[in-house]
């Protein structure tokens, strides 16, 4: 090996030799010429197709704002819809009951209408498994929860109270405005059906099946007595409720004190 050194140096000193490795001036002339050619080709190089998409940047920003507005509107509409479903008023609860109007009952068979009446009575009495709590319609004061005995009777037989309530509810649900004859045709047939259905619902004994007829025959002698008893019971109950409400009002208005405990 001819290149063996007589003396030794450090690695750092040895690496400094590479600083002295420099190209010749001719190299730099060639480098500059190549550099110029590459620079010019870079300047005149065709722009890629996606570079033109920047023109749509303003529209893209507008799309974002439109999308945000649409999302906001949808959110608001959804909120209103959910709010209406989750927090219905007493009227809408009553309207949601499976009561069929006389018109609908007239268009279909009378038996389903009777079944609907039974469900309404059970629901109002609070004895339906799906709706255990009693339903009280605040804006329908004529709807009064039936007493337990009457509700029990409504499950087995057709109670006059239940049918009366059903008719009231059906009237309550009936639309106020009549359908336009020029749109829906003549309403004479419709009125006839409505009257027939109303008569069927209003006369409970007219729609009784065999078992119910047998029970009605048993109960019919006691029917006037039961009606009188029920009317008396309702009158007593109303007065009792009034006394309870009055006492509660006095207790609550007494500086919000109840049982010696200040709230």
């Amino acid at each position: 090996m001819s290149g063996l050194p007589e003396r030794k140096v450090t690695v750092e000193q040895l690496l400094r030799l590479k600083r002295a490795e420099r190209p010749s001036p001719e190299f730099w002339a060639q480098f500059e010429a190549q550099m110029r050619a590459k620079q010019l080709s870079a300047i005149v190089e065709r722009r890629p197709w996606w570079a033109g998409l920047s023109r749509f940047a303003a529209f893209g920003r507008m799309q974002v704002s439109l999308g945000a507005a649409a999302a906001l509107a949808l959110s608001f509409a959804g909120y209103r819809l959910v709010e209406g479903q989750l927090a219905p008023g007493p009227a809408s609860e009553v309207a949601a009951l499976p009561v069929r109007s006389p018109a609908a009952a007239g268009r279909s068979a009378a038996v389903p209408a009777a079944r609907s009446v039974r469900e309404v009575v059970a629901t109002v009495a609070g004895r339906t498994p799906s709706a255990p709590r009693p339903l009280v319609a605040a804006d329908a004061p004529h709807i009064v929860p039936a007493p337990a005995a009457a509700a029990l009777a409504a499950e087995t037989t057709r109670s006059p109270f239940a049918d009366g309530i059903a008719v009231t509810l059906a009237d309550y649900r009936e639309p106020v405005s009549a359908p336009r004859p020029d749109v829906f045709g003549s309403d004479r047939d419709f009125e006839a059906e409505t009257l027939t259905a109303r008569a069927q619902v209003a006369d409970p004994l007219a729609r009784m099946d065999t078992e119910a007829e047998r029970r009605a025959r048993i109960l019919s002698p006691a029917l006037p007595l039961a009606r009188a008893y029920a009317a008396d019971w309702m009158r007593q109950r109303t007065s009792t409720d009034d006394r309870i409400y009055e006492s509660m009002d006095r207790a609550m208005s007494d500086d919000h004190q109840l049982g010696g405990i200040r709230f």
Partner: protein
Amino acid sequence: MQASKTLEKTLMATPERKLEADADLAVVRQVQAGDVAAFDRLIVKYRERVLGVIYNMTSNREDAADLAQDAFIKAFQSIHRFQGQASFFTWLYRIAVNSTLSHLRRNRLRSFFSLESVREDDPVSKDLVDALTDKQGGERDAFIRELQEKLNEAMQKLSIKHRTVVTLFEIDGLSHQEIAEVMECSVGTVRSRLHYAKQLLQGELQPYVK
């Protein structure tokens, strides 16, 4: 006192570099304003250093020339994105080093050395060769040529990242902080790579080093 100054110079960029960076930023602003010819001043100023870094990483002068030109073209094309948060030469070095690293990874199996000649008039190289040998004339030239080849072989045995750190620190004279900015790593990583690379070079260049 002298040791602390040397350490500071090693770790941090010097005030001269900061003045240089301010001057470069003014030129870059001209280019960004539309004065394309001003970029030629930056090319002339940094072409030797950029080429030297790439050459010492690749050990191939043709590849180094192409990569240096590509680095300047990339810098020119994306100069509108330069915000001036780092110095221009650090930014330019980062472009050059990343291009070279990509090239070396693509051509990992291809290694062809084409060495530049060592300039005899350089005082550093003359002192170094004088320190190593007393030979003169043709023997001296052969000794320098063999030393050059041994050095390049040892450098090529380093990994790409270790070679880059050694090149930037020992040959180009960048500080640890500047190398960390160029290589986008921590200063500790730079020191660790430098220490490991020197140990490897010490073993490879055993006949020449103490």
